[in-house]
């Protein structure tokens, strides 16, 4: 089970169960008086084979957390591991290779290269690496996502939901250790959104993938195994087996109540909402 690191420490020896881990992860923007702490010494473990949702109000640092875990952004302090590889301190070239080979991505919009067909988009990370996709796995992914008839289409010929399904297939195609989905349903109508969430769920349940999804939609978060709540750059709460109502309730209390056990390590510092 994924968990925010609050009390018990999970050592690196349990790495084979942990897809990603952060310790003291801090991300600051700017310097001096104008410093903004986007992440404030976050400890987090992402357990393999689970569907984790990250929630929080705008500016809570949920996208920054994802970017840092995925090696897209450099951290200001702390350490991040992907599996047993420490990615903090890696150079751009190594990070790029890591993203290409071990991580899958889905974004809110603009997920696909307009010049490539759906099939070419799906195998793009492997094509970039110069590797042959695992044909059997690819078949399964395409089958699961129902993209068989759409493979030769260009993104412009696909609906928003279909485009996100292609993006999902791309994220799954190289069988990465971890899939990051940044607001994958943000641009979709509710039916298409549900479809995509269903596929992510299926990816976890049937294809044994690990998914981390950033969202601000309680309904989307309800599809996950565990919801992590971020506020002011810290993990303030977690909710296993969430329902949409429970998540919504929790979010409503956000501005007024702070969890007592959430330590505020930089008390002196005011973190402005951005």
């Amino acid at each position, binding site marked *: 089970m994924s968990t925010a690191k609050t009390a018990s420490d999970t050592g690196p020896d349990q790495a084979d169960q942990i897809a990603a881990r952060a310790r003291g992860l801090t991300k600051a923007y700017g310097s001096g008086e104008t410093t903004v702490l986007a992440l404030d010494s976050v400890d987090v473990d992402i357990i393999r084979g689970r569907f984790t949702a990250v929630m929080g109000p705008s500016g809570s640092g949920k996208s920054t957390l994802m*970017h840092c875990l*995925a090696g*897209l*952004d450099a951290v200001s302090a702390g350490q991040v591991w992907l599996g047993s590889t420490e990615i903090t301190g890696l150079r*751009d*070239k190594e990070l*790029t*290779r890591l*993203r*290409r*080979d071990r*991580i899958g*991505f889905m*974004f*809110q*919009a*603009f*997920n*696909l*290269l*307009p*010049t*490539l067909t759906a099939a*070419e988009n799906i*195998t*793009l*990370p492997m*094509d*970039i*690496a*110069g590797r042959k996709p695992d044909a059997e796995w690819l078949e399964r992914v395409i089958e699961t996502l129902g993209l068989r008839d759409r493979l030769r289409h260009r993104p*412009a010929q696909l609906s928003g939901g279909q485009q996100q399904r292609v993006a999902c297939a*791309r994220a799954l195609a190289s069988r990465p250790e971890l899939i990051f989905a*940044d*607001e994958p349903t*943000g641009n979709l109508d509710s039916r298409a959104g549900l479809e995509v969430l269903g596929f992510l769920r299926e990816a976890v349940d049937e294809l044994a993938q690990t998914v981390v999804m950033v969202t601000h939609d309680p309904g989307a978060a309800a599809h996950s195994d565990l919801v992590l709540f971020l506020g002011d750059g810290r993990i303030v709460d977690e909710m296993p087996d969430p329902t949409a109502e429970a998540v919504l309730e929790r979010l409503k209390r956000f501005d007024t109540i702070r969890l007592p056990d959430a330590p505020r390590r930089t008390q002196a510092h005011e973190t402005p909402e951005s």
Partner: protein
Amino acid sequence: MLKATLRSFFAHKGRLALSALAVLLSVAFVSGSLIFSDTVNRTFDRLFASTSADVSIGPKEGISEAVPSGITPTVPAELADRVATVDGVAKTEVDVGVDNITIVDTHNESVGSTTGAPTIAVNWYESDRSPVELTDGRAPRGADEALLDADTADRKNVSIGDTLKILARPGSFEVEVVGIATFTTTNPGAALVFLDTETAQSKLLGDPGLATSIGVEAAPGVSDDELKRSVVAELGADYDVKTADEVAKSAAEELGGFLDIIKYVMLGFAGIACLVGVFLIVNTFSMLIAQRTRELGLMRALGADRRQVRRSVLTEALLLGLVGSTLGLAAGIGLAFGLIKLMGVFGMNLKSTEMVIGWATPVAAYVVGVGVTFVAAYLPARRAARVSPMAALADVEVSGFGRPLKVRAVVGVLVGAAGAAALIGCAVSEDTGNAASLLGLGIVLTLIATVIAGPLLVRPVIRVLGGAFPAVFGSVGRMSQRNALRNPRRTGATAAALMVGLALVGGLGVASASMTKSFDEQIDRTLGADFIVQNSNFLPFPEEVTRQVRAAEGAGLVVRQRYAPVELSLPDGKKVTSTAGAYEDQLDDVAKIVYTDGDTAAALALDHIAMDREFAEDHGVRIGTVLPVEFPARREARLTVGALTDQPGTSGPGTQGNLFIGFGTAEKYLPDGQDSALFVNAASGTSADTLRASLETALEPYPQVQVRDQADYKELIREQIAVLLYLVYALLGLAIVIAVLGVVNTLALSVVERTREIGLLRAIGLARRQLRRMIRLESVVIAVFGAVLGLALGLVWGLAAQRVLALQGMTALEIPWGTILIVVAGSVVVGLAAALLPALRASRMNVLAAIAHE
């Protein structure tokens, strides 16, 4: 609205920079050439006006010489005394000046200019009109003393006391340098020696009773025009009498021919820069507008009408044009300064401080700069005005992807068909004049058609060109090929800039290769001599050289050639000015000539002439026709057509009709002519190598002539054609520079436009190196597309041009495949170079900023 326009202009100043550079280049060439020619004209007007006598008496001007015959027109020196008694004359001077001489030092090396400027010998007398003053030593006295100009003395390390040999028509003679004369005005680049008047008359003109002109100074209170009238009244119409102003004008006109070439070359550069710049500006504005579709839509939604949107875009163009023109004008002044300095290297010392910037220069600069920008921005501006207010709300894909190219297809095909028809007409035409104008029309039409239809060709051509990319470069190759294909208009316009330059190169490459091959074949077919002795600029040489060659050991038959400028009055009423070759009787032993009527003996008989059969037919001439012919110095003759030839020969400007006459005829009507070539055969038993060595030894004191065998002669002709090509290559270089700017521009703007795509690619694991390669490949494919299109067009032009050349007797066709391959390879380099900065920029792009969705 104006405020919004200004804001937008400054916000995009980085993206407009390359367009401004294109404007700058065209304006710089326009203003630079105008400033340069104004400066030179002013300088020489002053020089000639201040150094000419009030009135000059010269020989009556006859026909002009396209090819020099070596004669120096003269007047009797006694005119000076005769005119001195005329009312209003204060003083007369005998002037002697010849430019058909060579000066060599004791090592037999020429001290003259090596850049084609003449070597001039004149008589020395003290005068306040002299362009030089004696700065060292003393004036020359007697037959073996001379002054040398300071620039030449410096350049060739000649000092007082040195001995020089002057090779003049009457004979060569040695002089001691007794003084150095320095130019007080602009030195036009010539090498000058001064002799005393009597020596100049006898040694340069061969007769102490002759002069090249008589200078007449007016008495106080007498105007030049009055003086001229009095002199003409005394002498009648036998001489040319000119005032100082008239002399300056005709001298400036003579010089003008050379300066005009520089001016036209510069204007050619400006033209290419403008043409190519237009493509660049159109592309920039189209892309800026595509990127700002939402912004423009918002303006429309907020109530700006179409006219305002259009005006806003055009105002931006106006600003760009003004900035580019101003910078271009400044660059033009710099360019003119550089040209003036460059002329200094060639010996023409213009003073850059006296630079003339006439009112026309800034006017032309701004008209060109603003005009070009405005024209180029007009279509994009109209497109901007058509942006719907809905664009602000809709989440549309940037850039006008799939807008149909139907109109382009129709117009392109129509214009292309007209152009093709013109070129075919040119190819089948029998008349040179018609063919040439059809060729010009065809070139213009097919160029326009290719520019219009270029975007339509993008898909098929790039599919083929980039076809191997996915296989060779994997997905990176596939993406770059598709990126080049995604906006055919943009790719087409970007490639068009390169296409124009390379089409010119292709066409001229074919034409010049064909010319060279034709000349080679012609030399093989017609030239029978073992060696030719001549000047590399085809200038005539003194008879001494001929004597030396005849006396050389191993020399067998020597056949002399002279050039005789002629004006024929033909039976069809036309007067044709051309040049006849004059040969000695044994012509058959050194040349192979095909006659349709008559033979060499008939052609070379006294008072006879031979000509090309076709030329004769065109003008109604038959064997036996008697033609009135005028030679230089107003000598008139009636020559009988003795033979007609069918030579696969060439006739350039000034030599049409393949005219030739006997040596005796030339000596009769051009008694002072000089030989311009000697055809030499080895005596029996002498090998060619032996003869060559002995000729070269014999000619050592005469550096102005060289010994050439057939291969050397071909090389000489090739070099003459190559000079033309160098000019074209320089033009091409400029076109390529601007085309590279265009590709850089397009790629840079594309990279900005594809920020999110690039961010996505980087996020999912595309390495920086791969990203750079992707952009490089796209750049290469665009450049090669331009090159292929340009060369294809150029080949078609070249084939048509070759048909025109064929009508002139240059029948060979040669396609310079080597050059074509080099150009294609070069275009790959151009693509790589153009991609450097955009690729760097893309690879430095912040991944997070690129994928941020807020």
